[in-house]
């Protein structure tokens, strides 16, 4: 027995030494934290893909993604408070923070459309044919004050409805389909993958589809800036290199996205994120237009968002807010130029 075991032990320890010794020398990866309010949503695809494909690692970054259960607002709060360095958030949050005297800057555009739809439960197919028909009914948004809330407000205003003529209910993101099924709300603002699944199952129909450019233009009257990568001015000032590296990785991710099919992307992502690959592929194809190949934050898009937020006084009537104050495209431009 003895003589057989010894060589094995020797061999194993040799291999161990080689493996350890073979680790590439160089700078240890820099640790970066990103807060996201619900990583499964398709609007966060660029960040999640960059991580899955190792783009962050190749830039020398060890990115930790914190999946915040409270949603977008909580993720943004974490950024403001300083417990994370970045957050993937709708630009709305940067605007809200700005009205309160806290600056958040968008350095990369994940999506350039709202990527949400106004869905009505099937039983009202005959009754609710336009937004105006929502008068007096309960309508769901993901949570009070969220992007879905602001957008809904804009849609209502555009159809001549006042905010209190509709009962706006916070029904959650992943619980929205259920709220519709149970008739807790007659219509609701849905994000993907719930939107695609819901319509596919024939449980409802869309009054407004803002996953496509055309649908957005119809509904909102123009471009709307969607999810971005946000960070604080002090991070930009003190650690610009890190910001650049983050943006580099994300720009690569966007390029890959616009060049890939839904199935390819579904396969690139970890199983728990993609869920049912077929469904994911379908929902991606539907929202394909939302992903900007050039990753640039659109000034007009930001301006329109500011206008939507005035409906609810989220941006107070008298306050002037310049779109430029909430985004900075320099990093993207540098990344594009490097190509």
């Amino acid at each position, binding site marked *: 027995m003895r003589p057989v075991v010894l060589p094995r032990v020797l061999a194993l320890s040799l291999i161990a030494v080689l493996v350890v010794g073979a680790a590439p020398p160089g700078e240890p990866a820099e640790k970066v934290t990103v807060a996201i309010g619900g990583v499964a949503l398709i609007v966060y695809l660029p960040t999640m893909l960059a991580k899955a494909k190792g783009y962050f690692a190749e830039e020398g970054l060890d990115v930790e993604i914190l999946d915040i259960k409270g*949603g*977008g*607002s909580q993720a*943004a*709060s974490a950024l*403001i*408070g300083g417990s994370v360095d970045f957050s993937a958030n709708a630009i709305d*949050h940067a605007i*809200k*923070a700005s009205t*309160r*005297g*806290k600056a958040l800057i968008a350095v990369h555009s994940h999506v350039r459309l709202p990527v949400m739809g106004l869905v009505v439960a099937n039983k009202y197919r005959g009754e609710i044919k336009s937004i105006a028909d929502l008068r007096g009914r*309960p309508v*769901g948004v993901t*949570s*009070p*004050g*969220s992007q879905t*809330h602001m957008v809904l407000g804009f849609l209502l205003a555009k159809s001549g409805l006042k905010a209190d003529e509709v*009962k*706006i*209910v*916070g*029904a*959650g993101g992943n*619980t929205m389909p*259920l*709220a519709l099924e*149970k*008739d*807790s*709300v007659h219509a609701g603002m849905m994000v993907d993958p719930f939107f695609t699944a819901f319509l596919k199952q024939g449980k409802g129909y869309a009054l407004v589809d803002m996953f496509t450019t055309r649908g957005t233009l119809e509904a909102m009257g123009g471009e709307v800036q969607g999810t971005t990568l946000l960070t604080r001015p002090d991070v930009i000032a003190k650690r610009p290199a890190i910001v650049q590296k983050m943006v580099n990785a994300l720009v690569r991710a966007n390029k890959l996205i616009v060049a890939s099919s839904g199935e390819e992307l579904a396969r690139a992502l970890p199983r728990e994120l993609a869920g049912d690959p077929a469904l994911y592929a379908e929902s991606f194809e539907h929202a394909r237009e939302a992903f900007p190949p050039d990753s640039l934050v659109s000034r007009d898009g930001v301006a329109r968002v500011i206008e939507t937020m005035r409906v609810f006084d*989220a941006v107070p009537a008298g306050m002037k807010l310049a779109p430029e104050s909430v985004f900075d495209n320099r990093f993207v431009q540098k990344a594009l130029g490097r190509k």
Partner: protein
Amino acid sequence: MATSGIDTVSRAEIRLWRLGLLAAFLVLWETATRRGWMDPFFVSQPTALAGQIAGWIRTGFIFRHLAVTLQETIIGFLLGTLLGIVVGLLFARWETLARIFDPLMVALNAMPRVVLAPLFILWFGLGLLSKVVMVISLVFFVVFFSTYTGIREVDRDLVNNARILGARPRHLIRHVLLPSALTWIFSSLRTSVGFALIGAVVGEYLGSHEGMGWVISYAESMFNATGVLAGLLVLMAAVIVIDVGLKRLDARFSYWKPIAK
């Protein structure tokens, strides 16, 4: 200074001290945020709070939401209390029932019902019902346990005496068990009011279109710390008012107790 250690400070003095402390705290808070020692974005400031609440009162905004929350709280509270007393009575009267259900009661009570809130919303919708159920689930256990204990703690001699005097079971309940349990019930009521309000607010927070929980949630997503704190203050005031009411009620029903200082 009194050497015996007996507190010779008068009530008026104590009040003065309390007010003084409060004033000092507010002044410190305001100054800290104005001078930049603390960031008002995160902690708000007394003047902003006052302004927010004043604005709410002026526009009547807050009354509507407070009314909704109070409605849910009170309905749930009354139902939960009633249920708690009835079940407590039943269990105290029929020992076997109590023994069969004891583990279930303990297990249910140990479950943090606040965590169940999303489920309640799922089952009972986004309206009033889910919040009332939430409140009942919190209040019931407190009242049940204290009713049950209160009745079991009844002096055996009193029960025996009543029986010898000719009391029928319904007499026992009405003249002996319930009055005896009432002290326990009342003390538990004051605790459960706090829970009731929490239940209603948490329910609203997670899914509703009005109510104080909704107001606070909205303010939070707008990064409005002032709004959040103001909402909390309003709730606090409501609880205090209700508590005072309950204290009065308790005093009214405790006329027979020896005066303990």
